[in-house]
C-alpha cells in the first residue's frame, strides 16, 4: 500500500540506511564532512550510524569533537558559510538544548538576517524519542520546538527507505535541515533500492490507504498508526495513514485531500501535547477544511509531563497503539 519499492533492493536496517546515505554522500561530494561526538571508528557513533566511515574516508572527513554542542553546531555553521557541507550529529536530540542559540539564532536566521547573502548547506542530525527507559533527559521528542523556528527544514522519517532518500536530499539542499532519527527505529528493517535515489522534501507518503478516518503521524508514530489501522480494520474501520516525512515543509495538500475523503482526522505525535505539532496540523485542517470535518480533530501525543524512567510509567505517558485506536473511534463517534 505504501510507496516502498519492493524490487531491486535489499532489506536493511534504518541505521544502515542512515549510514549508507552518509557514506555515499561523502563519496559523491568532497565538500561533505561529518562532525560530532564519538563518530570515528571503531566506535562509529553512539547509535552506530557512522560505522566504517572514518576508516574509509579518513579523519579529515569525520571530525570527533569535544562534548560542546553549541560549538559543534556553531562550527558546522562556520564551515557551511565558508564552502563546505557539514553534517553535524548531536547524538541525542535532548542535547540540542545546549545548542539552541546556534540552531535558532544563528543557523536558522543568518541567511534572512544577511538579506539573502548567506547560504547554509548544513544538516544537523539528532536521535530522539522515548521508548527505552532513557528517562527525562535522553528521550525527548522536540520536533515541535524546531518546527517553531523559521529558517529550518525538518525531516522526521519512519522507514529505512525514507530515511536514506531524505537524508541524501537534506545533504544536497543549500538550506539548513534538522534531521531527526527515532532511537526505536534504528533496528527496524525495510527495503531500500540499490543505487542512488533521493526523496523530495514536502511530499507526504500515504503509508496505508483507507476511507473512514485519516491518521497523520510522524516518525515512530507512523508504525503505531499502521498497527492501529490493522486493529481498526478488524473492526470494519478503514483508516488512512499519512506520513508527512518532512514536518517543514508540510505536504498540506495530501492531508487535506485525505480529510476531504474521510471527514475525520487523528494526529499522532510523540512530543508532549501542549503547543505541539499535532495542534499545528489540527489548526491547519480546521481552517482550510472546516466543512469537510464531521467530528472534532483528535490528538494523540505524550502527556504533559517529563518522560518517567520506569517502563510502565513511560508507556503510560507516551502515545500507544490503543490510544490511537480509541482516538479514531472517538472521531467516528464509536465511543
Amino acid at each position: 500500500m505504501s510507496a516502498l519499492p519492493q524490487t531491486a533492493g535489499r532489506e536493511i536496517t534504518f541505521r544502515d540506511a542512515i549510514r549508507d546515505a552518509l557514506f555515499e554522500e561523502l563519496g559523491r561530494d568532497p565538500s561533505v564532512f561529518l562532525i560530532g561526538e564519538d563518530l570515528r571508528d571503531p566506535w562509529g557513533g553512539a547509535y552506530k550510524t557512522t560505522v566504517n566511515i572514518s576508516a574509509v574516508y579518513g579523519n579529515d572527513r569525520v571530525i570527533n569533537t569535544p562534548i560542546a554542542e553549541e560549538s559543534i553546531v556553531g562550527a558546522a555553521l562556520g564551515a557551511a558559510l565558508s564552502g563546505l557541507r557539514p553534517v553535524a550529529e548531536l547524538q541525542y536530540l535532548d542535547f540540542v538544548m545546549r545548542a539552541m542559540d546556534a540552531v535558532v539564532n544563528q543557523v536558522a536566521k543568518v541567511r534572512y538576517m544577511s538579506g539573502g547573502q548567506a547560504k547554509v548547506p548544513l544538516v544537523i542530525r539528532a536521535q530522539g524519542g522515548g521508548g527505552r527507559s532513557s528517562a527525562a533527559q535522553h528521550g525527548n521528542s522536540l520536533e515541535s520546538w524546531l518546527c517553531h523556528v523559521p529558517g529550518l527544514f525538518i525531516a522526521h522519517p519512519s522507514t529505512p527507505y525514507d530515511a536514506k532518500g531524505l537524508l541524501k536530499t537534506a545533504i544536497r539542499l543549500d538550506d539548513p535541515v534538522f534531521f531527526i532519527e527515532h532511537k526505536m527505529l534504528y533496528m527496524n528493517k525495510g527495503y531500500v533500492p540499490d543505487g542512488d535515489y533521493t526523496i523530495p522534501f514536502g511530499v507526504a507518503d500515504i503509508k496505508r490507504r483507507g476511507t473512514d478516518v485519516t491518521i497523520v503521524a510522524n516518525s515512530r508514530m507512523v508504525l503505531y498508526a499502521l498497527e492501529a489501522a490493522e486493529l481498526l480494520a478488524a473492526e470494519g474501520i478503514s483508516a488512512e495513514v499519512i506520513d508527512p516525512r518532512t514536518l517543514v515543509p508540510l505536504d498540506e495538500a495530501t492531508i487535506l485531500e485525505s480529510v476531504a475523503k474521510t471527514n475525520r482526522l487523528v494526529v499522532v505525535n510523540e512530543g508532549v501535547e501542549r503547543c505541539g505539532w499535532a495542534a499545528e496540523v489540527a489548526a491547519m485542517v480546521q481552517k482550510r477544511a472546516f466543512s469537510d470535518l464531521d467530528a472534532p480533530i483528535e490528538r494523540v501525543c505524550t502527556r504533559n509531563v517529563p518522560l518517567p524512567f520506569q517502563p510502565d510509567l513511560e508507556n503510560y505517558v507516551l502515545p500507544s497503539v490503543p490510544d490511537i485506536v480509541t482516538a479514531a473511534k472517538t472521531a467516528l463517534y464509536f465511543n
Partner: protein
Amino acid sequence: MHQARWIDFYRTMTRIRAFERTAREVYTAGKLPGFLHLSIGQEAISTGACAALRADDYMASTHRGHGDTIAKGVSIEGAMAELFGRVTGSCRAKGGSMHIADFSQGILGANGIIAAGVPIAVGAALSSKLRKTDQVALAFFGDGATGSGPLHEGMNMSMLWQLPMIFVRQNNRYAESTPLVEHTGIVDVVQWACGYGMPGIRVDGNDVVEVYDTVNTAVERARMGGGPTFIDCETYRHYGHNIGDPGTARPKDEVEAWKARDPLERHRERILENHIATEAELDTIDAEEQARMDAAVAAAEAAPKPELHEALEGLYVDEQLGKQALQGVRQ
C-alpha cells in the same frame, strides 16, 4: 617598517569614527529604528586587527560591530543604508546595526548574541584547514563574553585542532553596566589562554600599531599551521552601552581619563611626530571621510524602504520548498 600603512590606519579609524558619529547624530534626530551600540574609542582594535587580514580571511564580530565590519571592508553606503532600514542596506534592511554582514568580504556577521560569533569563526578556521587553504579566521568579542561558554569551547577546539584562529578580546572594561571586577574572576585573562595551551598576549588596544603588529604575528603563525592565538586588547568606549544609556554606570573621571587616551588622537600625533604626513593632509582625510558619511546618509535617506513582500522572502535558498514552508501562514 610599515609606516607607509600608518596613513591607511588613520583613514580607517577616521572612517569608523565618522561613521559612528554620523550614525549617532541621525539616531538622536530620530531617523534610525532599533538599537545602536557605538564603538567610538575602540577603533584601533578593529583597524589594527583587520589590517592584518586578507580580503579572503574570515572575521566574526559582535553587537558593537560597526568598526569591525568597516575595517574588514563592508561598504559604507551599504552599512549606513542598513542602519536606516533601506533596501540598499548591506542586508537589505533585514539585519540592522547588530547584524551587518558582507560575506564577499569574509565578514561572517556582526552578532546580537554574546560570544556566538566565536564558534562560527572557529568553524570557518576548521573549514580553511579541511580545504587546505591558508585563510585564517578572527573572532572579536568583548570582555562581556569572557565568562561565556562558547568562547571557552572555541578556545579548546581551536587548540585541539590547531586551527588558524585569532581570538581578539575588545576589553572595554564593562559588560553593559557591570565592571570587569564584577564579572570575571581574574584580572589577567591572558592566563586563561595559557591554560588552553595557546599564546596569549595583552596589548594596548588604543594603540593601532601595537594591535596590528600583534595580530599580524598571530596571523602569520596561523597561516603556517602554528595554531591559534588569544589577544587581549585593553580599551574603553567613549559612550555608554548603547544610545539611551544614561551614562550612570561609569565614573566620570574614569571616562575622561580614557578619552585622554583616545586612539585616533594618539595615532594622529604619532604620524605628525614622525613626519609621515602633515596636519593639512590629515585634515583632508578627516574631511573626505566625513563627506563620504554625509553622502552615505543622503543616499540612504533617498533610498526606498523594502517592499512589504520582502519580509516573506530570502529565508531559504530553495524557493519552491521555502514557499511551501510558508504555506498556511498569514501572507
